[in-house]
């Protein structure tokens, strides 16, 4: 989709925002078009949730401007990080409350609720109390509540926290379906796989401003080309000799020293060379395409190198 401000549902122009004297967003420029799923991706403290609050109109920018060209602020709905539903009400009843609180009459609300249940594939659980649902179904119900009433902008803050692969897929489908019906979706997520599956565009946020944005596949191709990620996982920290060899081969260790990663060419050749040693150390080798986490790490390192 596009970020053309002319057809945008949400526009940030040089937005500065924060809490008290602490600035979190430091000149964020962003435009999300109708029918587009846009993901904000970045480390903790980058300003993703603050951007979500500004997008909802819950937090005023200290500088810059935020606009909702389509329906104004009244067309914004939120799926917060937690379930944010009435526990003693059923899924459908929760959705009815949201619809009617937004001003829909009972008949119109029923239509809106049916649509939201369909988009999130929650029909089979419509009459179950939130309190008795599993975490995954609660996340779906929470997203369904944000899709009630055909909002022009849906802000979904970490919708996949603690969900399984199946639910993640259902949530991605729901956001895609909402976008197909015309909603702009701002997705705040740490979940690289989910963002790749759901988002048309992704923006990398660091220290309160965008450092990169584009289509996920295009950004990955641009950053990594034909290079692949070779990951080695150990149950215990590898011996010094093996660790030294891996460092010389271009691997970086995770903080706990159990996962080593290398992004480069000829991953299978490198894997073949290390196979015996890794096998003896009880480790496993995995070759995969670099993902958005790899890109975020690379961008972070690039920014760090430039700043220092």
């Amino acid at each position, binding site marked *: 989709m596009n970020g053309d401000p002319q057809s945008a549902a949400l526009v940030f122009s040089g937005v500065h925002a924060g809490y*008290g004297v602490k600035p979190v967003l430091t000149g964020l420029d962003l435009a999300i078009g109708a029918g587009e799923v846009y993901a904000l991706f970045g480390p903790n403290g980058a300003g993703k949730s603050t951007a979500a609050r500004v997008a909802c109109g819950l937090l005023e920018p200290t500088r810059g401007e935020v606009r909702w060209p389509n329906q104004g602020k009244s067309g*914004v709905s939120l799926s*917060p990080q*937690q379930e944010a539903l009435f526990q003693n009400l059923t899924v459908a009843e929760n959705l*009815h*409350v949201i619809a009617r*609180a*937004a001003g829909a009459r009972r008949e119109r609300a029923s239509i809106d609720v049916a649509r939201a249940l369909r988009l999130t594939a929650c029909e089979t659980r419509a009459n179950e109390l939130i309190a008795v649902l599993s975490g995954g179904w609660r996340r779906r119900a929470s997203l369904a509540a*944000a899709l009630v009433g055909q909002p022009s902008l849906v802000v979904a*803050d970490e919708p996949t926290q603690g969900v399984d692969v199946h639910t993640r897929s259902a949530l991605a489908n729901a956001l895609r379906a909402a976008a197909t019906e015309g909603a702009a979706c701002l997705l705040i997520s740490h979940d690289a796989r989910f963002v790749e599956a759901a988002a048309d565009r992704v923006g990398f946020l660091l220290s309160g401003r965008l450092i990169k944005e584009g289509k996920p596949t295009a950004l990955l191709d641009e950053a990594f080309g034909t290079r692949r990620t070779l990951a080695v996982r150990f149950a215990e920290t590898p011996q010094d000799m093996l660790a030294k060899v891996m460092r010389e081969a271009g691997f970086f260790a995770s903080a706990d020293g159990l996962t080593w990663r290398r992004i480069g060419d000829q991953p299978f050749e490198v894997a073949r060379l290390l196979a015996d040693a890794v096998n003896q150390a009880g480790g496993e080798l995995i070759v995969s395409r670099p993902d958005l986490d790899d890109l975020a790490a690379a961008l972070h390192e690039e920014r760090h190198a430039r700043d220092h």
Partner: protein
Amino acid sequence: MLAIIEAYARGFLRDRPGLALTLLLPPLIYLLFAAIFGASGQGSIDASVSFTDLARSAASQTARAAMRKSFDRLSEQDSVQAVEANVVSGRADTGVILRAGDGPGLRIEILGTGGREAATNAVAARMSAIHAAMAGRAVDDGSVQRRRLGPAGDFQATYYAAAVAVMFMFFAAVHGAMGGLDERRSGLQARLVLASRGLAPVLGARLLWLTAVGVAQAIIIFLVATPDLPSLAIWQIAAGLLTAFVVGLAASGFALMVIAACRSRDQAQPLSTFLVLVLAALGGSMAPRFLMPPAFQSIGWLTPHAWAIESWQTVIWLGRFDSDVPTGWIVLAGLGVVGWLVAFVIERRRLSG
């Protein structure tokens, strides 16, 4: 706003244990209070006594001197009517009329209202002791008699129905308002604010819902107390209900304000419990204000509890609608509105910061 109130109502009705505790505990406590304080009086009660001396004799002079030593709060009136007015209005707990008896003796009349048996019993016991000391022996010749003033109902039943109702309305309101902390933390409040296009409908719905629960509690308590209440005219029932509404409003506004000022349940639980207990104690929910020292009786007017109890007593027991009643309603409704406004300002700042 109605949709949110409906959501609260559905959730409330489905939480059966919570429902039972909210609506059944208050009448049980009322019955307990009424039983405890309906027991016979104790001599140590510091009752206020209004008296008049119709005998004007040497014996009555002796009795007056003894009364001055025995009662800290003693006021002399010119006539029986003045004493009766003081007792019925509550300015005095008990009245004493000293009349000339046979020969040099006295006849002593103790005046009390339906619900102040504790104070009346205490005063009667002391006057009997004074009379016995004057006679040089214990006497039981009917020289000390009691007369009940006011409506046929039980003053005490009305008092404790009102006292327990206002106390539980405040407890229920603060506990209900704590749900707002969960809504704030989970993001449900933000979601409802976006759907309703503002914080006012969300907080307004919470205020009205908590008020409705409070009114339901008051109705149940007064229904349980009905056998001991005077027979009520339609206007008294309507005024009692309106009093319940403004008390509920005051409790809800106060609760929303206190809870809005807290960041967590760990803060809200002890703070709200402390405040509600202090208000209940000073306002007369735990012990009648007329039994308190004068300073505390005056401080009591700073609590909504005192206004609530006074308003209910005036319309239900005294069967009057004087200027004190609308004044009480204005005070209570004012607290509700101010509490709501303060809560609104705090919640809006939290929401945007």
